[in-house]
């Protein structure tokens, strides 16, 4: 049996969304699929928390949204990273790296 999807570490969802959008413009479903793929199924997003985070990021001007037609002729909202969002992603990535390293050192020490 494969592992149950894990809960995200609190506060990391925003960072993951920003990271996903740093590669290319994407719609909501695309973001959730991409996160699931990249995490090899460890993280699975629920639509509610995904769109709550998107709303928050958009209001903080970290991402911009735009209606565009999809491949199969529907309309979806595509999101791009803003300059401010890119800066935020950089700083959060650095901070995350520092924290992971620190936690790793603590766990190794014991």
């Amino acid at each position, binding site marked *: 049996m494969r592992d149950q999807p894990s809960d995200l570490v609190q506060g990391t969802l925003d960072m993951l969304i920003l990271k996903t959008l740093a590669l290319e413009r994407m*719609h909501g479903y695309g973001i959730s699929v991409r996160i699931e793929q990249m995490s090899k199924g460890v993280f699975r997003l629920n639509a*509610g928390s995904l769109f709550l985070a998107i*709303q928050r990021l*958009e209001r*903080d*001007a970290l991402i911009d949204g735009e209606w565009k037609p999809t491949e199969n002729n529907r309309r*979806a*909202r595509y999101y791009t990273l803003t300059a401010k969002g890119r800066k935020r992603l950089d700083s959060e990535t650095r901070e995350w790296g520092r924290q992971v390293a620190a936690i790793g050192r603590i766990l190794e020490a014991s």
Partner: protein
Amino acid sequence: MSLLRNITSGLRSLCRPDQVDRELDEELRAYQEMAISDKMKQGMSRKDAVRAVRLENGSVDVTKEIVRSGGWESFVETCWHDLRYGARTLRKSPGFTVVAVLTLALGIGANTAMFSVIEGVLLAPLPYSEPDRLVVVWENNLHFKQVVWPSYPNFKDWQSSARSFRRMAAMKWRYYDLTSPGSPEHLLGAGISSSFLDTLDVKLPFGRDFSTQEDQRGGAPVVIISNDLWRNRFGGNPQAVGEAVTLNGVDYTIIGILPPRFQFDERVDVYTPLAQGDPLMLDPRGAPAIVSIARLNLGVSMAQAQAEMSAIQDHLVQLYPDANKGLGVSVVPLRQVLIGDVSGTLLVLFGAVGLVLLIACANVANLLLARSVGRTREFAIRAALGASRSRTVRQLLTESTLLSLGGAALGLTIANWGVRPVLTGMLGSLPRSENIGVNTPVLLFTLFVSIAVAVLFGLAPALKNSKTDLQSALKEGGRGATTARHRVQNSLVILQMALTLMLLVGAALLFRTIHRMSDTNPGFDTQHVITFKVGFSPSLTKTASGMRTAYRQLLERLRTLPGVQAADFTYIVPLKSRDNVAPFWIGSQMPAVVRAAPRMMVFDTGPDYLRAMSIPLLRGRFFTEDDTSKSPCVAAIDDVLASTYFRGQDPLDQTITFGWTPPWGPCRIVGVVGHVRHWGLGNESSHTQAQAYYPLYQIPDQWVTGSEGFPTTTIIVRTPLPAAAVIPAIKNVLYGMGKDQPIYNVESMQEIASESMSAQRFPMILLGAFAGLALLLASVGIYGVISYSVTQLVQEIGIRMALGAEKQNIFGMVIAQGLRLALAGLVIGAGAALVLTRLLVTFANLLYGVKASDPLTFIAVSTLLTAIAVLACYIPARRATRVDPLVALRYE
């Protein structure tokens, strides 16, 4: 930037909810569709794919709800929903709403009115620029530890040496009879130094300030007039500058008009240069003469100014030991001087009105609790549908806020149109009462109070309600939490009773104080005495002998009027604020330090004064018309002075000398008279008690015509006729001697006596009104709770009756329940009152003749309150006896 985006986005979903909802819907459906088609690509049937996506993400509607609740606008939205829902429920029970809003309006209205007084009198800044830098500089009698008015020469020396002040100025009250242009009128004036208006930073809209040349003896007669006088006498015409007004027979040129509403302590209409005033007042270095104000330099503290002034004063004591020995100096904030000692009384009243609001809150809380019984099901259903506890509490608090804002709006109207004019009228004797009004700070206070109040009375019922046990509530139709609710209701009634008792005790103590004071023998007969002042035409009073003759003739003519038993004039009227305290010594040998000599009150009077006032002559004689400035000096003393300073000796024919430099006397003591209460009918032990009388006709020429001479005397007439009947005859006599002679300040001695009690009367009336309000609210409260409990106990009563209980037993049971609550409240309230009424003494010094713990007052008030409580329980008790056991039991 992002804040702006946040706000606009939130506003968009508030203002265009449909469009935002459509967009969110479309986005989510696109998401689901994509998820479904992905699953179908993996080989699921569409039906299975739809179900799988549903399972993973929940329905679109739930997701939408989650996303929507993320923004701040959702909070606004629920508040709005709560408000509308609250307003709807309140409209559905108009009886409850009206009673609750009225109760709150009374409480909030009374508090708003009282706060507007506190704000206007105590809190509002003084109406001058940078008022915190303004100070008053007093001289300080180190022997009696009292501040006194500085002498003018000392002030001049301060002014030239002090470096702590940007400006220093002096002023002195003066009295002026204006005789032209227009009809004669008596005005309050002030002599001010040329630096006075500059110190207060007052800019004249027309004309100019006094020059230093004008602020000198012999300077040109110039005057600055108030804006009111300018409007009334000169129609507000700027051409008035340069025109002449006749004051006390001298033509003054108007050189300046003051800005509207300018005022310094009292309403003054004419300002003249200080140094042109009476040399008798201004020249002696030893005589208290002026009020000195100053503006601190930037960065100079009170303590620094005080230190510098003390050093200067020490130097002046060394230079002029005769006049200045025993004198220090104190620098006091102007604000403290202008506000005086009313703050204690006002704060006690503010506390009292706060208690009224608490009682009102307890009432509304009780109403809410009783009402919530009917709503138990409503809240149970809400909870069953998934409303969280905090959501329910929020809904209930929104309702109570609605109630209290309604109460505040109504209360503000009451305060503004009803209570406040009455209050300002009554507080006329307060300093700065012209400041009182409903302004922004008052409105903010009311808003704050109403919200605080909403939480106060709304929170307990809200918490109680939201905790309903779902099952029992839905099953039994709402009798689940009744015992807990009873406990809260009972505590609230006990609280109300306790608070009401405290207010009643306070009001009763003040009432007893006033009663005691009215019963006090003031040492003279207040009945049938009329007092007034006159202004003689300047042509009659140019010289001292002319002045004496004018008064002698007027008094002689007054005595022949029908109904007049006695008439004479006096410098000081007992119980009025003017006084004349002077140092004195027996014999003629001046003591080394005059400032340390004992003090007495000197009454300068005519010979008929004793009969006019009905003051008893105890020994010797009083003055006659023959005691004049040409005969040897005589004086009379009162029995306090006789017994305190002539222990065992006979004071008659001994001599006494008194006054500042130069002293008056020695005068032979020719009589001993009864003591008169001058300082008020209450406690006067802190003031000078010894009294002496000095014949007005004996006063030297230069004093008779001086600024504090005969024109400032008051005429006393003893007549059994009412004032309205005598005054026309008096006016005839006066106008017969000259047409330009005003008569003013007409008062009966009883009015003066009653006014002297205003410091006690206005708090008594207010506290009485608050206590009455409290009594009303508390009796409604106990009535409500008892009648509610009767409806709850119908079954129990039915069973008791079925088991053979008599009607009296049931009646007694209900009354006893009410009494238990009332008594518990009385005990707690009495305990608290014992502590709090002490504030009336220590904080505001209001009581006289009764102790703060006066047992009679406590017993009387407790009895009254118990009787009211029994009365309030009577109706529900009667209703309980009419319960039909059959009906009651069938109910089950």
